[in-house]
């Protein structure tokens, strides 16, 4: 089949691509659009490093066809920092990103973009989770370095911070 022209709305910006319909969203993001913050590994929905948000829900981009993602709001890790261009300007990090830095939750870092997005999707829906709920929310994101403990701590800390600033504002 000939390539088709699609427009993907990523982090609020339209991105055009000319692709075969069997291309996955993960591949289009990384190869065509140069957005390598979303990672590649098992290509089997088993490890979660490719997690992106689609209309606010966590999804494995490795099994999601790019054509199906048209018309939906796609969020990648590059879209999380409030400066929008992914640079770590002081104060520009999302509370989850800040918490991951402060709590020693980052080791090799390869699982982290997917982990942060899974956490964000969950916190947006459940602002005051218990530890058990956070673990359950992240069960689809494998980490081999941290043993998950400081990741869980960081998510709980971010939840507190986000909840209290929500109250304040």
């Amino acid at each position, binding site marked *: 089949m000939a390539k088709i022209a699609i427009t993907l709305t990523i982090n609020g910006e339209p991105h055009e691509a000319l692709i075969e319909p069997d291309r996955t969203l993960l591949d289009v993001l*990384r*190869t065509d659009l140069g*957005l*390598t*913050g*979303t*990672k*590649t*590994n*098992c*290509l*089997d929905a*088993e*490890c979660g*490093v490719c997690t992106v948000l689609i209309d606010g829900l966590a999804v494995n981009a490795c099994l999601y066809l790019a054509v199906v993602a048209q018309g939906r709001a796609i969020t*990648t*890790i*590059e879209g*999380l*920092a409030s400066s929008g261009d*992914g*640079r*770590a300007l002081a104060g520009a*990090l999302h509370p989850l*990103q800040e918490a*991951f*830095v*402060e*709590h*020693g939750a*980052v*080791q*090799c*870092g*390869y*699982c*982290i*973009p997917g982990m*942060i997005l899974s956490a964000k999707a969950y916190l947006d829906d459940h602002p005051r989770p218990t530890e058990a709920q*956070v*673990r*359950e929310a*992240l*069960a*689809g*994101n*494998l*980490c*081999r*370095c*941290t*043993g*998950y*403990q*400081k*990741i*869980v701590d960081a998510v709980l800390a971010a939840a507190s911070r986000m909840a209290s600033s929500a109250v304040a504002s």
Partner: protein
Amino acid sequence: MSTGTRVAGQSLPRIDAPGKVTGSAVYAADFALPGMLYGKVFRSAEPHARLVRIDTARASAMPGVRAVITAADAADVRYGAAVKDEPVFAPDVVRYVGQPLAAVAAVTLEAAEAALAAIEAVYEPRPPVLDLAAALAPGAPLVHERWRAYTAIPILQRDGNVCNRARIVVGDVERGWVEADHVFEHRFTTAMVHQGYTEPRAAVAAWDSSGQVTVWSNTQLPFDVQATLADILAIAPSKVRIIVPGVGGGFGGKLRIGVEHFAALLARKSGRPVKVMTTSEEELTAAYPRQGTVIELKTGVTRDGRLTARQGRIYFDTGAFAGSGPGVASVATMVLAGPYRTPNLHLEGYAVYTNKTNCGSYRAPSGPQANFAVESQMDIIADALGIDPLELRLRNIVHEGDEGPTGQVLTAVGLEECLRRAADAIGWADRRPAPGRGKGLAIGWWTTTGGSSGVYVKINPDGSVTLNTGAVEIGTAALTGAAQVLAEELGVDLADITVISGDTASTPFDFGAQGSRTAFAVGNACRAAAAELQRKLFELAAAHLKTTEDALALRDKHVVGPGGRVSLAELARQSQVSGGGMIAHGTFIAPGTAYDTKRVEGHVYPAFHSPSFHAHAVDLSVDAETGEVTIHKYVVAQDVGFALNPIYIEGQIEGGVAQGLGQTLSEEIVYRDGRVLNANLTDYKMPTTLDVPRVESILVEHPGRVGPFGAKGVGEPPNVEPPAAVANAIAAAVGTRITSLPITAEKIVLAHSRDAAGGTH
């Protein structure tokens, strides 16, 4: 924890965190160059065969294919860490399913995959050697018929399918059996397991017009890969440049050449940059996993629980090529001795060839396997003698000034403190708090691997400091730790330091991210560089402040003297104008550890340098009907010497225990007839958030003499004790002793029913 130090010893955020949390950090798997081709490797479908013919004509003609290479395109070179037995592509004999036979490069990954499908290989199968028993049987077929002709480390004891036999002999075990009141003999087995890094191995290679190749790779040992690749390409090492952009986990699986040679060869043939990346299937069939083992352990004790003798044999199924087998077999003998006073020892480690993927080094190589045997047996002994397992260990552990198994003198021995504090934290007094619930202990020791590290440290005219190191950051935050040491010595903040790392052309030699050595060695190299910088700074400052050098000190980003102070920035500026810049070279190599050479044979690792000591304790319940294990509490007490950065050391412990629990309860690469049955992450089961308990880390500090501020290596040890600790707790909980890893629910249920029915196992 850290008194008197300002930066070193503080739980400061790692310097590379912002790039990682924003997705802007680039890993080798992310790296790309314009015009790049995609490479894929064609791999053997037979475990043992003569390669009759390989036909790549159809593949070469396919759309988008720009290069196809086979053994004919690579120099007739064999490589390997201990025995040079491994070719790039099998030229004639194929020795495992997954062995590379050819490679293609094409304009898209899909085109490369289609080309692979068009390659035809014709095999003449031979009887495969499927396991240790088959390999060691009298008259067994040889995995390597021409083993004698291979270049190997001279001291290795090689013979047929055995690519090394390492041995430690102390005293006379026969005398030990006589002195013993009881002699215990047990056999243990462990499975092959994979490091499970989440980033696949990846390399991008590009040649320039001067005949130099640059390879961006996620290797842990850029200088080792440089040397191996130079051999394979038949060019001078200085013509090979390895750059490590970022590594998504290694754990030893990314030490040796993985895909760099395919990328470089394809790039040379096609004239374009080429990227090669492994799939999960390739990782689980053709990587460098941890060897499966069989362990035979015989230990003599007096009736009051003193060890009189130990005889141990551990056989490593190291696969089709020696890989790290010979070295791992050596280290194993040190682990089999354990941190115990035992007057008579006869310990052997065998690395054995089979027709399976060649195995390598995985975080504390040989540690979990040998420790599983030693610490399980200690509990069996304790139980049989009616002695508390904690007490049995206390009666036998080494103390300050004792000898290690090869005669090295042990110093900074924090073992007793670790053992007591771990037992205390788990509530050892109440060992069986409820039906189906029990607690287990395991202790061990480990090394801080030597090797040299060099750094350049530059103070910039704006007052910032650049640390230029050949080391690689694989996720442990070791380079943050080293930078903390540097900041401490120079009187600056961690935030003032920028790290440049991992480029064989522009960074000094480093022995690599292995053996828990990076923070230790690079930290010490930084101290050497800082000392040299201090000399240069003081020379300049003395003139500036009109005083003598011995009246000066480094403090708060200044050189401070009796009459005033001058900033490092100003001195760097001055030096740049008149002296070529404020830069120093620092090197470090760990001093050798003296040992008794008469005690060892075939041994490539005869002493544990700056050894660490540790104790693990676990409290768990077992559902005897389903075999499900629920861990309530897990405690680690680890003698780290000096905690350079406590939060990241905790991270190593928490992560190491999680990884160790995977090896203990759920992970195994399953082979049948030479083929892997579970080469995917659905069926290679790594722990998720719901499978890992919280871990309580107790950082014990008995400062060593060599490491920066007394630090010891910390990364590998947490992988060592989980299997034994869990096995001991399960035995305490339901009275069932499992002697093979992984300890699956199925094994627990079947053994438990057998025990209940009065059977033996």
